């Protein structure tokens, strides 16, 4: 390597730095300073992070070699990095082994004075330090929610306010029965890993129990195959429990296509041809929300919509009779089932919200007062830290 470098220097001739009349590159001040190696934080180990700063006024080199050696072992060149980079991640280390690193500036194929060495060893951490605040809050809130679920299960007193969209479910199914027209249930277009879809299939069970009871046909076109399976299970079970297994029609729950607008086109066709009297649009929706809701409105159906997608809520509000906003969608299954343990979880959610309101109000007061009085700004910083997640 060294010989090749020398060869190159002879070939290329004097380097600009020499031509400028300064000392030879070997005597130049180090290219980089504050070179350090640390264990990469919050990982399973196996990574050491190197960082350095370019020292001002140093020569611009062609590239830099990052080298590594184990105690007493040979030096390996890990990588050639660009002269303006200031960091490198070594992802090939073993945990608990001490490595030493050096940075070798290269100019015209020659090694200049190396920076370093510095040493570090990698290790794995048990708790992600940037997430400990979130861990604490998660555990506290989960404890609240699970406590109120237990409380509800044991028959504790629970008041739940009226949610207009959900009180209308019975009316909507009833109206469809009177008019002799079907009920259409659309569980959104996302797959089963989406929590809104999960919530929607649970609500589907409650709605199916009503349609089974009233003997009204229920149609559920879906856009994802896993949702098809779950919806079939849920509806079948609801009909079984209502004592109407004969009325369950497996094909009324059908897969159309995974394609967002192919699905919208198909559902639009179903709406204008079957003319459902009640349409439920509950789950995760994107742009197709208004295509479905406006078409549903044009056939005069009662429409109950709900989603936690903030961008689609305005359209449901403009085109549907009732809209469940955000969290109300997740409250729906508890509300409709009236099961005490589920209602308990709503109470738990309220406590969680109250907790956050208190945090926000305290934090705002503290940071406002903190503009004039330092101790308060420390409280604000603490609150921000607590809610800060990396």
């Amino acid at each position: 390597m060294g010989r090749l470098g020398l060869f190159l220097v002879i070939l290329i001739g004097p380097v600009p730095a020499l031509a400028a009349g300064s000392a030879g590159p070997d005597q130049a001040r180090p290219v980089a300073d504050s070179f350090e190696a640390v264990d990469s934080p919050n990982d399973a180990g196996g990574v050491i992070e190197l960082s350095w700063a370019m020292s001002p006024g140093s020569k611009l080199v062609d590239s830099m070699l990052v080298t590594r050696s184990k105690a007493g072992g040979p030096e390996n060149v890990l990588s050639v990095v660009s002269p303006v980079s200031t960091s490198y991640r070594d992802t090939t280390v073993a945990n608990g082994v001490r490595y030493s690193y050096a940075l070798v500036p290269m100019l015209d194929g020659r090694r200049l004075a190396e920076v370093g060495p510095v040493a570090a060893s990698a290790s794995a951490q048990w708790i992600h330090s940037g997430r400990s605040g979130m861990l604490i809050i998660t555990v506290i809130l989960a404890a609240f929610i699970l406590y109120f679920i237990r409380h509800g299960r044991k028959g504790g007193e629970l008041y739940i306010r009226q949610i207009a969209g959900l009180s209308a479910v019975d009316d909507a199914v009833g109206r469809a029965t009177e008019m002799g027209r079907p009920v259409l249930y659309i569980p959104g277009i996302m797959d089963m890993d989406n929590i809104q879809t999960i919530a929607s299939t649970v609500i589907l069970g409650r709605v199916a129990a009503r349609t089974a009871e009233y003997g009204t046909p229920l149609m559920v076109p879906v856009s994802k195959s896993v949702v098809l399976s779950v919806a079939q299970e849920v509806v079948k079970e609801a009909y079984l429990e209502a004592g109407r297994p004969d009325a369950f029609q497996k094909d009324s729950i059908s897969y159309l296509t995974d394609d967002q607008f192919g699905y919208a086109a198909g559902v639009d066709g179903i709406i204008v041809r079957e003319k459902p009297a009640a349409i439920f649009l509950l789950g995760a929706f994107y742009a197709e929300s208004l295509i479905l809701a406006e078409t549903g409105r044009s056939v005069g159906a009662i429409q109950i919509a709900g989603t936690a997608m903030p961008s689609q809520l305005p359209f449901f509000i403009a085109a549907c009779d009732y809209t469940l906003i955000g969290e109300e969608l997740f409250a729906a299954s508890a509300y409709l089932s009236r099961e005490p343990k589920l209602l308990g979880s709503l109470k738990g959610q309220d406590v969680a919200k109250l907790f956050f309101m208190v945090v926000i109000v305290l934090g705002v007061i503290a940071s406002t007062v903190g503009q004039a009085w330092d101790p308060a700004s420390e409280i604000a910083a603490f609150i921000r830290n607590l809610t800060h997640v990396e």
Partner: protein
Amino acid sequence: MADFWKRLGEIDRRIIFVLIALAVLVPLALKLAFPIPVGKGPSKDFFDSVDSLPPESVVLMSFDYDPSTKPELHPMAIAIVQHLMSTDVNLVAMALWPQGASLAQEILVEISDSLGREQYHDWVNLGYKTGGLVLIARLGSSMKAAFPTDLSETPYGQIPMLDGIQRLCDFDMIITLSAGDPGIPHWVMVASDQLGVPVGGGCTAVSAPQFYPYLQRRVGERPQMEGLLGGLRGAADYEALLRRKYAQAPPGTAIAGMAAQSVAHLVIMVFIVLGNLSYLALRKRKEGQR
């Protein structure tokens, strides 16, 4: 007269449909154009953060849209790729939406040819993988595990520009052009919030409001997103900024569309006004009768 107001309030929606169609077709056919004034804001922030990338930095650009949102997101993608390739920034493309991969390829090949860039040295298209959030989380620990090959099945290890790019942290910036789910929130959740890589991007105008919270800047801290292009206006802003800075940048399609846009907006607003006039007139009459 009262009858007129009543009829106006309940006008057949198909009349609105026809007027909207005309509002778009006529300005396009006549090629009307309006000037685009760009002030400070998310579009400018985004442009500036892309523009300040030093040469030889590496950007991951994720094409998270499909042809249905092409009119809004494609002009952005073209302008951004144009920008990156003319400033010597290396570009790794991928897609969270299946059809995004071929849309990306279309742009990359065309612009790289016109600017004389080289595949595998200046840019690479890794293609599409499913999984959304799960996939991004995977990329956070290993790019190669999720993308064993690029779009044309060249093994990851044989692509020179990917040397030293092992995971998301190795990128200087991530740009996502996002039509929905998966998209911006997922990149922000993993890449920006968890890994600390700057994330910026564009989205349809409809989803932009929900990302405003990500843009908030506080002193001494990185925002969750560097900037945001919202819809056709965002694309037109970017085109205008690009042309202001680099006069040789070819004209885009977004500016032309803004004229049709303006007329259609006017038509809708006129209808909202008419609807309210009808509503108020009828209400006055009802009160008068009482």
